[in-house]
């Protein structure tokens, strides 16, 4: 499984380069460092899975695979597996198509208001999936807008039900497509335009140009995004639980949840067995992604080129409205329905002058100190997770691209598993590990904020690594060499050459980590304590208690904060951006 593109000659060059590349850690000899790295990865990423595996084969009398055999004999299991495959693959394809189209338009055309569009695209990932689900199901419901529209034509007409395979695939697809977009847009911008000119000069048409030049070169980004979407869809619980349960469509994540909350001593073991199977599927997906990028090439110019390449000209007339209306349809409509709900006095009455109020916001902002506390906790947690993931993930990605080895590949697999397991399973495995990491030693981490922090880093590190790998694969080693030959010190090389080139890619990963951690729910719901309540848990608590008005008010507030935050970030980037280096992400 030799994956990466660098040939032997470059590898030898790399070795020389790494020697001089970094920092005062030389007192650690190579072997110890390696060993420590292995131990830490085993402890943080493999041990939780190991515990699950152990639970799934442990029975009263010793060990047996009886749980697995029992599973494989159930008709329901196979049905679930089939559903899972259909839903995950179809929604991944949908996300890929939408993500690539959006990225192409944003990277290459002279469409207007790119900044705003960029925000809009991100929004559908930022909105908690249950908000998206809720608004779509009401929008398409028998009382919704679509239904009343259809009834104009035919009194019996009913909209397409969201409570179906199609509905689940659709909502998952639109929820995850920004992942593909984020991973693809920078990659597209880096593809030198002279390649296209050359192809055009040789008589290739636009389609051929796209399939023969753009697509192969953009493959690392596209597949990295696609893989993450695949993993995220595997683990997504909210959407299938809400849209699938009423019509008895179960997928692996909901089946695992139902097993785990079932009674009886073997419930846990059955859930663990299912989780192990789910983990295997994730590993297979990751391997597939490796195979697909084997042939991709980096190119030696790695400048971000944000200048539009295609003048939409007369096409702008239809592309512009189409793009805007679809984005508005995907995010603004649900968002609007959420915000309008949060302004109501009573649920179920239409929004009118006598049913409008700011009470819900007042309650959220002033009457409940716990809410501020939870916003602060989530911000702190997301920020520290971002920082650690950015540093560790980027370094890991650097080694993964420049010094590929079997070991580092195995490490990447191990690191990707926590992201795939359903949140409830991952959280339970964290409890199993961290209450007594070493028999007889309780470090007192369980039940504190540190527990959440460790869980977030373990779960989201892969996001940063994927973004990092994509970024590094785009920067050719010749850049390193050029810097060295010109006599730049390692420090100088990083600061002046590599970081500016890598930063956009690394930052888009960091933003993903931050946003995911900020509204994380499933893991927090089991690991939080009263001192470390998070935003997700607070929203979930309101929702469970039937306080929809509060939960939508808080969700709207969070979306508002994110929009403001992203705006600030862009401002900072503008101030930071240097000549010739464009920091747009």
């Amino acid at each position, binding site marked *: 499984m030799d994956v990466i593109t660098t040939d032997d000659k470059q590898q030898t060059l790399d*070795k020389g380069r*790494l*020697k*001089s590349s*970094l*920092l005062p*850690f*030389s007192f*650690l000899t*190579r072997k110890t*460092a*390696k060993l*420590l*790295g292995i131990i*830490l990865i085993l402890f*943080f990423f493999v041990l939780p899975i190991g515990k699950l595996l152990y639970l799934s084969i442990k029975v009263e009398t010793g060990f047996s695979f009886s749980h697995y055999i029992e599973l494989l004999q159930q008709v329901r299991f196979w049905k679930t597996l089939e559903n899972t495959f259909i839903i995950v693959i179809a929604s991944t394809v949908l996300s890929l198509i939408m993500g690539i189209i959006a990225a192409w338009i944003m990277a290459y055309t002279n469409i207007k208001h790119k900044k705003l569009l960029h925000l809009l695209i991100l929004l559908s990932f930022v909105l908690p999936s249950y908000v998206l689900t809720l608004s779509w199901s009401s929008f398409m*419901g*028998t009382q919704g807008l679509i239904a009343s529209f259809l009834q104009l034509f035919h009194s019996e007409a009913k909209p397409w039900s969201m409570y179906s395979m199609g509905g689940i695939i659709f909502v998952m697809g639109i929820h995850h497509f920004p992942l593909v977009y984020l991973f693809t847009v920078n990659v597209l911008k880096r593809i030198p335009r002279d390649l296209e000119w050359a192809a055009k000069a040789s008589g290739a048409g636009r389609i051929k140009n796209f399939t023969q030049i753009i697509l192969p070169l953009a493959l690392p980004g596209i597949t990295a995004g696609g893989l993450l979407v695949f993993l995220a869809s595997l683990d997504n619980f909210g959407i299938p639980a*809400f849209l699938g*349960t009423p019509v*008895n469509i179960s997928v692996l994540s909901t089946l695992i949840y139902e097993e*785990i*909350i*079932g*009674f*009886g*001593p073997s*419930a*846990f073991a059955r859930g663990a067995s299912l989780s192990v199977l789910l983990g295997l599927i994730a590993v297979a997906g990751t391997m597939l992604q490796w195979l697909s990028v084997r042939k991709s090439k980096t190119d030696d110019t790695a400048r971000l080129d944000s200048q539009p390449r295609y003048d939409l000209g007369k096409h702008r007339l239809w592309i512009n409205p189409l793009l805007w209306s679809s984005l508005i349809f995907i995010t603004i409509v649900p968002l609007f329905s959420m915000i309008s709900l949060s302004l109501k*006095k*009573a*649920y*179920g009455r239409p929004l009118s002058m006598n*049913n409008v109020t700011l009470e819900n916001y007042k309650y959220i902002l002033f009457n409940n100190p*716990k809410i501020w506390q939870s916003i602060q906790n989530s911000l702190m947690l997301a920020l520290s997770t971002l920082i*650690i993931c950015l*540093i560790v993930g980027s*370094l890991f990605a650097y*080694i993964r691209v420049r010094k590929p080895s079997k070991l580092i590949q195995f490490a990447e697999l191990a690191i990707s598993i926590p992201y795939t397991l359903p949140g*409830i399973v991952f959280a*339970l495995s964290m*409890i*199993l590990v961290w*209450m*007594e990491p070493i028999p007889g030693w309780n*470090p*007192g*981490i*369980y*039940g504190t904020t540190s527990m959440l*922090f*460790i869980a977030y880093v373990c779960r989201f590190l892969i996001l940063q690594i994927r973004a990092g790998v994509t970024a590094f694969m785009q920067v050719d080693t010749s850049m390193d060499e050029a810097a060295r030959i010109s006599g730049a010190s390692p420090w100088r090389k990083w600061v002046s050459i590599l970081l500016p080139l890598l930063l956009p890619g690394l930052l888009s990963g960091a933003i993903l980590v931050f946003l995911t951690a900020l509204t994380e729910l499933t893991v927090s*719901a*089991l690991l939080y*304590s*009263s001192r470390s309540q998070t935003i997700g848990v607070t929203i979930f*608590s*309101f929702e*469970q208690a039937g306080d*929809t008005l509060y939960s939508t008010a808080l969700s709207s507030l969070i979306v508002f904060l994110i929009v403001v935050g992203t705006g600030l970030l862009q401002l900072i980037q503008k101030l930071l951006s240097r000549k010739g280096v464009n920091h747009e992400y």
Partner: protein
Amino acid sequence: MLRKNSVLAVLVSMLIFTGCSSGNQASKQTDKVEEAVNSSSTSISGQLSFYTSQPEEDATKLVQAFNKKYPDVSVETFRSGTEEVTAKLQAEKQAGQVQADVLLLADAVTFESLKSQNLLAAYKSPEREQIADELMDSDGMYTGTKVIATIIAANTDKVSTLPTSWQILTTEEAKDAAIMPSPLYSGAAAYNIGVFSRTDGFGWEFIEKLKVNNMSVIKGNGAVLKSVASGEKNYGIVVDYMVAREKAKGSPIDLSYPEEGVPIITEPIGIIENTDNIDAAKAFVDFVLSEDGQKLAAEIGYTPVREGVAPPEGLKGISDLTLLSGDIAILTNEREADKKQFTELFGN
């Protein structure tokens, strides 16, 4: 060669750095034990870990009221769905030590299963004198804290007369227009299926008729409430207090107690076996069942479990309710089978 793997070294040191936690928790355990030893019956103090499935706000109010009386007890609350709390307890048990001291969860069946795993400690609070026998465990392992009836909710914009019987859900009037919570996700719903399927005049036939009538099944009680309040459905099977509260806010929704009777859950409270602060745990249980604690429950909007405390506006008190109930042992043992049967029935 020395610095070849310095990158790895940095990675390693970073990971170590993340592993360093900022907790001064390690000493907590010993503190707990010491405090438990030092505490006399007059001054109750120390840490109390409280796991509950109550809504956040209710749990907060309860702890605040308790702290007015016992200011020296620091209560750590963990709140989630009953199933999540149970899963967390199981994981803690697997890892070697249950962290909770007091539990307050949805229904008696959940407590029965915890009881059968020897996770609970017996405590017969003196306050139990004022509570009906059928609302608590005779061995003292758990005691009901409120009465939550499952009723029929109706959207008043869509329905002119409130139903008086459960059977309306099997008639033409409710065809395609009724909704209920899934027993796979809601403890109360699972309990209801167990009770209905074993009650004369209902049985699995009744549940089959619901299916034939195209009853929708959704994740939880909150979702049922929203569906009926928004008029997406006309009728819903749902817990009473949510409907009363939403009605009071002005939503077009009302509740009806069918004349055949209603299944109730009691949100019992229980103490974990081997808790390291038994005095505080007992004090907490006593407080919840006391007159003050019960008045607080009524203020929040629940029917109190204690005789002599008036129910909130819009809800029936325990003495006015006709109950549908079943043998708790059977319901507990058969719960998984009931869920399975329900899944098969509604799956086709």
